[in-house]
Each structure stands twice: as structure tokens, then as C-alpha cells.
């Protein structure tokens, strides 16, 4: 039962990863693309981590996976901010 739920989570996460990729490809400028990327990606990884925790079974693995997810959210939020500001400065200079 938990395994079934886990695989459902993982399949659902794929939709968010796909949305992130397509957004990155289709949206018109850096800032819009950034938006698609961070929102979809973090939700996607979150669902995947939840699914993997359910399938993987033991506590230590689940804790590690949770840490991975939190770190990715933290890092990508900051990275997105850095890239956005850098893009803005470039826009002013040119």
C-alpha cells in the first residue's frame, strides 16, 4: 500500500519536472523562465522525495532525503535570486 502511494507520488512529480522543462523552453525572458524553474522544480523534487521515502522504507534514508530536498530548495532559491539580479544588471549596462 505504501509502495503504491509512493509510486503515485513519483509519477505526479514527473508532471512538475516536465512543466519546469517546458516553461524553461517556452517562456519569453530570463525572469519568467526563472519563475517556472524554481516553482515547478522544488515541488517536483518534493513529491519525488516523498515517494522515495515511502518506498525506501527506513528512517535514516528518509531523513537524508528530506535534508536533500531542503538543501535543494534553499540553494536554488538563492541561486535564482543571484541569477535574476545578474540578469538585471546586464540589462542596465547594455
Amino acid at each position: 500500500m505504501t509502495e503504491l502511494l509512493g509510486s503515485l507520488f513519483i509519477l505526479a512529480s514527473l508532471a512538475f519536472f516536465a512543466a519546469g522543462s517546458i516553461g524553461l523552453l517556452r517562456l519569453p525572458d530570463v525572469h519568467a523562465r526563472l519563475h517556472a524553474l524554481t516553482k515547478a522544480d522544488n515541488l517536483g523534487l518534493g513529491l519525488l522525495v516523498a515517494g522515495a521515502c515511502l518506498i525506501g522504507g527506513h528512517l535514516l534514508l528518509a531523513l537524508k532525503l528530506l535534508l536533500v530536498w531542503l538543501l535543494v530548495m534553499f540553494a536554488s532559491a538563492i541561486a535564482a535570486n543571484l541569477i535574476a539580479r545578474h540578469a538585471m544588471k546586464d540589462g542596465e549596462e547594455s
Partner: protein
Amino acid sequence: MIDMDTLLLTAAVLLLVTLITGLVRALIGPSLQDRMLSIQLLGTGGVALLILLGLLLKIEALVDTALVLALLAAVAAAALTRRETPHD
């Protein structure tokens, strides 16, 4: 009823396909920042794929690898955007 491994493997293949789609942005740009976004996506997607591979191949150390990638996820963006101290 499909078994667990087939399901996870299908998920891994589909995930890789979306990552390839996202990497097109690294190819066409146009700006360096656009390309860097693509790397950012590959970082997160890589973490996800490592977790899936870890479950599939039953290698727990791949979660450690995912942890390393997660810790370093912002290094490239920081390295791109930092400015050097001015000459005195």
C-alpha cells in the same frame, strides 16, 4: 499489475527526457544567465535521477551523491555572478 522496478525505471526514463528538453535552453541561450538556468535544472533533475537510480540499483550511497549535488547546487550560480574587488 506492473512491478515496482518497471515503474521506477519508466519514471527515470521520463525524467531524463524532460531533462534533455530543459537542456535545449543551454544550447540556444541566448544569454549566459539563460544557459545557467538550464544547469540549475539539470542539478535538481540530477538529484532526482540519483535518488531513483539509488532505489532501482539498491545502492544507498547514491543518496549521499544526491546530498553532495544538493549542497553544491548554488556554487555555479554564485561563481557566475560574483564580482571581484576593485583594483586599488
